[in-house]
């Protein structure tokens, strides 16, 4: 009875939340004569006369998906996104790992307020900063390059990562380090040999969520880059794949769905750790 109740509530929520993705998935394999036929039942696959068929594999096409990869710049944007993401994550780790550790171990007054200050920075939205930053990017001659994004994205990944890492490091018992110090390790060596390896799951969580913040970002990507070859997916798909009034819906839906699924799978796998770090930094 209790079980049934759970499914009755959770089920509809899941359906509503995932619906746009189901809709994208169905759309991306539709033939034009099915998609743009008002007689078709849009939830499923239909023949040219608008009659629905359950053997959907006979009425779908991969044409629009292959069009996306062969005749648009989509693969370039995916590549650019990966380049930016990896570079930003690397910069973030180099700066946030030591900072997060030090903030976690600093007891008392200003360690705490420093942590809070870093967190507050995460709340200053890009929409407040993009105007001066876009002028700065022009001044540095970085306009329309991936470098502009690599330079600016750490502005939100570093505070976010420092905060999460602080939460993770707090869960590591101080005694472990003390033991290493007694055994003749230097502090930096203890950090490298003991603390970082133990926190690897936490660090991986930070990598994944920082990376996804980069993939997600829109306003910087949209204002700093302008040529098709230097777009990331987040700015490229909405600005380059939609030309005037012509929408290639099937290709667009493929472009939307392809990055979303792996990100969601990663989120789901690392969710518990994310919660632990997120609340650990703030509330303990």
């Amino acid at each position: 009875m209790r079980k049934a109740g759970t499914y009755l509530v959770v089920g509809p929520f899941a359906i509503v939340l995932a619906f746009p993705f189901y809709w994208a998935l169905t759309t991306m394999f539709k033939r034009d004569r099915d998609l743009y036929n008002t007689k078709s039942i849009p939830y499923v696959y239909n023949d040219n006369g608008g009659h629905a068929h359950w053997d959907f594999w006979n009425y779908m096409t991969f044409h629009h998906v292959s069009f996306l990869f062969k005749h648009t710049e989509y693969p370039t944007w995916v590549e650019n996104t990966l380049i930016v993401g990896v570079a930003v994550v690397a910069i973030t780790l180099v700066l946030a790992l030591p900072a997060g550790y030090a903030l976690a171990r600093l007891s008392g007054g200003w360690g705490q307020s420093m942590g809070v200050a870093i967190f507050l920075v995460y709340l200053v939205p890009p929409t407040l900063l993009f105007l001066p930053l876009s002028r700065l990017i022009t001044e540095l001659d970085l306009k329309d390059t991936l470098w502009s994004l690599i330079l600016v994205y750490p502005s939100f990944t570093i505070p976010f990562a420092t905060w999460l890492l602080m939460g993770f490091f707090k869960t590591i018992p101080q005694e472990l380090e003390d033991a290493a110090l007694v055994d003749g390790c230097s502090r930096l060596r203890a950090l490298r040999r003991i603390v970082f390896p133990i926190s690897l799951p936490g660090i991986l969580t930070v990598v994944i969520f920082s990376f996804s913040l980069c993939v997600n970002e829109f306003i910087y990507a949209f204002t700093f880059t302008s040529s098709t070859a230097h777009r990331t997916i987040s700015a490229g798909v909405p600005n380059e794949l939609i030309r005037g009034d012509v929408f290639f819906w099937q290709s667009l839906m493929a472009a939307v769905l392809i990055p979303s699924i792996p990100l969601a799978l990663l989120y789901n796998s690392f969710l518990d750790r994310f919660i632990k770090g997120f609340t650990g930094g703030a509330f303990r």
Partner: protein
Amino acid sequence: MAVAAGGVVAPRRRRWRNLLEERRFLAPVLIAPAVLFVVVIVGVPLGWAIYLSLTDAIGGSLTGKWVGFDNFTDAWRDQNFRNALENTLIITLAAQVLVVAGAAVLSHFLVRDFRGKWFVRLLVILPWAAPVSLVTIGWLWIFDSLFSIVNWTLGKVHLIGVLCGAFSVDGCSATNPPPWLGHPNLAMFAIIVVHAWRVLPFAVVIFIAGLASIPTEVEDAAKIDGATGLRKFWYVTLPLQLPIALVAVLFGIVFTAADFAVVFVLTRGGPFNSTQVLTTWSETIGIESGRVGAGAAISLYLFPLLLVVTILMLFFARRAQVT
């Protein structure tokens, strides 16, 4: 203490090493690079934005003539700006109401164990994990003027008429379904739905963290005292969960009020600037019209709102500790 072993190290290097063993020296060394980077890339532009908002700077220049608060007062007098400010507040508040209601219910059931939980959770967090600008294109297709799945479905169950009435759309009927993004009221509603949909999974996750942090002793004590169902929810769960729930709400406010992608992709502020929000309007003025100073002033109107939210967040985050 550990340095004693390094007898062969030159004195100078040893002193350097000694310093690194020193806590009050090591900590600033580890923190400084991150802080410096953030100050340069966030603090400086923020200060600059404030400076620009007080000048008549135009596109291509980094400075301008000092004009005091003219940009702010000019913006205030502009009907488009007032509209954008009002829309930002309406969208932010309405979306949060939907989010809190949804997250309170969903998190309550998602903490339980049941078969297929992993898959359900995957479906639930999809909107949060997917890139905003991309999923909004998904919604663009859902609200398409000709092939909207919403209109098709409502048409099948004969509710188009109800929809037209509810949003007072003129000249709309079952045979002439409303254009979702072409009508001010419907477009606003669509934007609210997309924001709520996008923020809900995050709120659910934070709510679950809050529920999970309630110690089992408290649950047991409540059980012994005979608190069940609604009473338990009202007197035990709610007070313990409220602080962290508020943190989720405040995050939601920041995510929604500061967002640019949803409105930009869905409506570009249209039809006729009726769905502009502060972020899109500041981009229209600051980048497209090239009036950087005026654009900066518009985006800075967001600042007081975010500041209040942030202060509240700190206040509640401190209390979120369950002891």
